[in-house]
C-alpha cells in the first residue's frame, strides 16, 4: 500500500508490541505516518481526529523524549493529553499496578500510553482497562513505536527496507528497542544482524531470525544501516563489560569501524546517547547520522498510531 492508496482499517484495540502485527499492518502504519510527517511540517499542525478524547501518558519510568513525543502527537491530533508520572508516588504507597489501572480506568481515558520498567506490565494493564493501550516501552520486552519510527526513517532514506542489511549493535540483552526492531525489520524483509559482547547477548537470540556477531568490524561489514543501542551505565564496571574504555574500544562506533559498512551506510540511535561510550561524537553528529531525523519520525509515527487506534474507539 502506498501513502496515497486506500486506507485500511487497523484491526487492533491496542498496540502492545510489533509481534502482534502482520507485515501489512506495519506498512499501513508507516504509510499513515508519512501523511503525518507532512502535517507536522505545516504551519497549521492541528488536526481534530482526537477531539474530545482523553489521552493519558502513564510513565512509570522517566523518559523525556518518548513522553514529549507522545504528548505532541496527541495534541496535534486534538486530544486532551495528561501526563502522569507514577514512578514513585503510588508505587511507594504499596499500590499494585492493577489498582492504578482501576483508578485510571475510572477517569475514563480513551487512550493510555504506558511505559513501565517491567516486561509484560503493559499487557497486564491492557487486560484491566477498557480503553486502548499503547506500549511506550515495557522493560526489556518491546518498544513498538520506536521500531516503527526507525523503520519509517530507514524507508524514507533508503526508499525501501527489503534486502537491506541492518546491524543492531550494543546491549541487545537489555534492549526493548532491539527486540521490536528485530521483529519489525524481519517482517519488512531486511537482513538483521546483532552485534555486541556475548555478555550483552540474550540466549537464543539467533532463533529470532538474526545473525549474531561479537566483533564490530565483522558485524558491520557491508551493512546498510548501523543501529546503535544505549548502554546503561550500571552495566559497566565489571558486571557485563569491564569498563567504558574497553567497551568503547571494541564496540563503540567510530569512523574507522563505520567504514566497514557500505559507504552510504546510515547511523541510527534511539537516544539518549552516551557519547564516547557506544558512539563517537563525530559519528553521532556526522553526515551519516539520522539521529535527529528519527526524533521527527517519532512524532509522526505516534500520530499515526493514535489515529489508527482512535478509529477503533466507541463513538457513543
Amino acid at each position, binding site marked *: 500500500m502506498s501513502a496515497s492508496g486506500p486506507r485500511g482499517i487497523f484491526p487492533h484495540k491496542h498496540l502492545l508490541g510489533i509481534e502482534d502485527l502482520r507485515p501489512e499492518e506495519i506498512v499501513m502504519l508507516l504509510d499513515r505516518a508519512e501523511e503525518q510527517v507532512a502535517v507536522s511540517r505545516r504551519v497549521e499542525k492541528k488536526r481534530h481526529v482526537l477531539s474530545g478524547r482523553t489521552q493519558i501518558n502513564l510513565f512509570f519510568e522517566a523518559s523525556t523524549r518518548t513522553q514529549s513525543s507522545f504528548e505532541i502527537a496527541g495534541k496535534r491530533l486534538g486530544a486532551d493529553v495528561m501526563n502522569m508520572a507514577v514512578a514513585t508516588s503510588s508505587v511507594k504507597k504499596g499500590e499494585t499496578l492493577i489498582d492504578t489501572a482501576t483508578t485510571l480506568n475510572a477517569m475514563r481515558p480513551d487512550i493510555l500510553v504506558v511505559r513501565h520498567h517491567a516486561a*509484560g506490565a503493559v499487557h497486564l494493564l491492557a487486560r484491566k482497562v477498557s480503553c486502548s493501550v499503547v506500549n511506550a516501552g515495557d522493560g526489556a520486552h518491546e518498544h513498538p513505536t520506536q521500531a516503527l519510527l526507525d523503520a519509517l526513517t530507514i524507508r524514507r532514506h533508503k526508499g525501501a527496507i527489503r534486502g537491506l542489511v541492518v546491524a543492531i549493535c550494543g546491549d541487545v540483552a537489555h534492549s526493548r528497542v532491539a527486540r521490536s526492531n528485530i521483529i519489525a525489520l524481519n517482517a519488512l524483509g531486511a537482513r538483521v544482524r546483532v552485534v555486541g559482547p556475548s555478555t550483552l547477548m540474550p*540466549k537464543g537470540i539467533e532463533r529470532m531470525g538474526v545473525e549474531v556477531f561479537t566483533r564490530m568490524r565483522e558485524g558491520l561489514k557491508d551493512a546498510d544501516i548501523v543501529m546503535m543501542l544505549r548502554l546503561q551505565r550500571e552495566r559497566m564496571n565489571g558486571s557485563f563489560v569491564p569498563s567504558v574504555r574497553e567497551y568503547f574500544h571494541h564496540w563503540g562506533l567510530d569512523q574507522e569501524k563505520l567504514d566497514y559498512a557500505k559507504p552510504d551506510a546510515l547511523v541510527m540511535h534511539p537516544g539518549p546517547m552516551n557519547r564516547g561510550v557506544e558512539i563517537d561524537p563525530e559519528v553521532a553528529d556526522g553526515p551519516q547520522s539520522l539521529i535527529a531525523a528519527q526524533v521527527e519520525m517519532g512524532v509522526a509515527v505516534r500520530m499515526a498510531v493514535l489515529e489508527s487506534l482512535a478509529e477503533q474507539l466507541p463513538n457513543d
Partner: protein
Amino acid sequence: MIPTPLTRRATDQPPVVFRNARIVDPSRDLDAVGTVVVAGGRILAAGPEALNQGTPEGAEVVEAEGLVVAPGLVDARVFIGEPGHEHRESLATASRAAAAGGVTTLVTMPDTDPVIDDPALVDFILRRARDDARVRVHPMAALTKGCLGQEMSEIGLLGEAGAIAFTDGRRSIANANVMRRCLTYARDFGALIVHHVEEPTLAGSGVVNAGEFATRLGLPGIPREAETIMLERDMRIVGLTGGRYHAAQISTSDSVEIVRRAKDRGLDVTCGVSVNHLCLNEMDIGTYRSFLKLSPPLRAEDDRIAVVDALADGTIDFVVSSHDPQDVETKRHPFAESADGAVGLETLLPAALRLVADGRIGWPALVAALSTRPARRLGLDGGSLKPGATADLILVDPAVSWVLDRAALLSRSKNTPFEDARFEGRVLRTLVAGETVHRYRDA
C-alpha cells in the same frame, strides 16, 4: 515412625468397605481389583481376597467398580502462610484444600514469619494442626537459623519437637561449608536435609527459564546450570559427609543424570519434582501469566519430558505440589515483580493423572511417587494399604472429566497455573485414619 499429631476419633468411625475397586498399593506391589475394609481407623484388609473375613458389622459398603482406591497422598512440599501470612493460607484452609485433593499428609515448610527455627514454633504448628487440620500435618524445620544460610539450627532439639526434616524452604544454602557442616551434623541424628537446588548468584535476577522464550518476552532468564551446579555441588558434599539428602525439586534433564549417578555411587540421595514441572513448560506462561511464575522456573519441553521419564523409571522419587499460596498483593504485578509460586494441593493428583492418560506412567508408579515413597523417606505413617496400616486413603474416579474453576478452589489463595484446565480424574472421597474428611458430591 513418628506418631501422628492428629488425634483422631478413629474407633468412633463406622467401618467402611470399598467393593470391587481397583486397589493400587505400591507398598505391596498390589494393583488388582478387590475390596478394602477399613475399621477402627486402620486397614483391616485390602486385596482380591479381602472379603474372606466377611464384612464388619455396621459397615458402610461402597460399590466402587471402576474406581481406584489408593493410599492417601503425602505431599512433601507445602508452603502455608501460618504463622505470619494467614491471609494467604492457614493450616485450616490448607488442610481443607488438601483433603479435597486427596492429600492426607502435608509437610509444611519452615520459611514462615517467624521462621520455624525454634522448638516452640514446631510445637505451635503441631498444636495448631491438631486443633484445626483435617489431615495430618508434619513440619519441616529450618536448616539454618532464620533460613539465612549462615548458622545451623538446633537440629537435635527441633527433631525432638517433631520436625521431620530440615530445609531452608525456598532458599538455597550458597555457602558450601555451611552445607557441609549441616550434612555432617544432621547425620548424627539420622536427620534428612532437604534442599532447594538453585545457585543464587547464577540465578541472579532471572524470572523464567533462560532461552529463546525468555529473550522474546524480554525477561531475564535463569540458566539450567543454576540448578545443576548446586545439585552437583551438593552431591559432592553428600559424598564427603555421608549425610541423608533430598533435592526438593529438580527440573532439568541434566539434574536427572546427576541424581542417577549419585544413586549409582550409593549415596543416600533422593529427589522430587513438582507436578507443575511435569505438566507445564515455559511456553505455558504465554503473555506474562504470573500464576505460572515458579521457582525453579518452568523449563523447555525437552526438560519436561526428561523429568517425566525420570519419574517413570524411579530416578525421581517424589512428586510434590509445591503448594505456595500467594495473594493478589504479591501476584498482581508485572511478571518479573510478582512472587514465585502456585497453589497445588487440589490439582496435584488430577494434574499428575495427565501423565497416566498420556501413557507416560502407570498408576502404581504414580501413587508410589505421590504417597508411598515420600512416607517411607520421611518416616511417616501412610503410603500403604497393607493390613494394620493406618487408614489414610483415597477413592478416585479416573473417568470424571471436569474443568478447574479457580473460584471453586478451597485454598484461601487462588493462584493456580491450571485455571480453566480440563482434567480427567477426581478424588471422590478422602479418609484420614478411617474418617471421611472430604466427599465430592455424594460419593
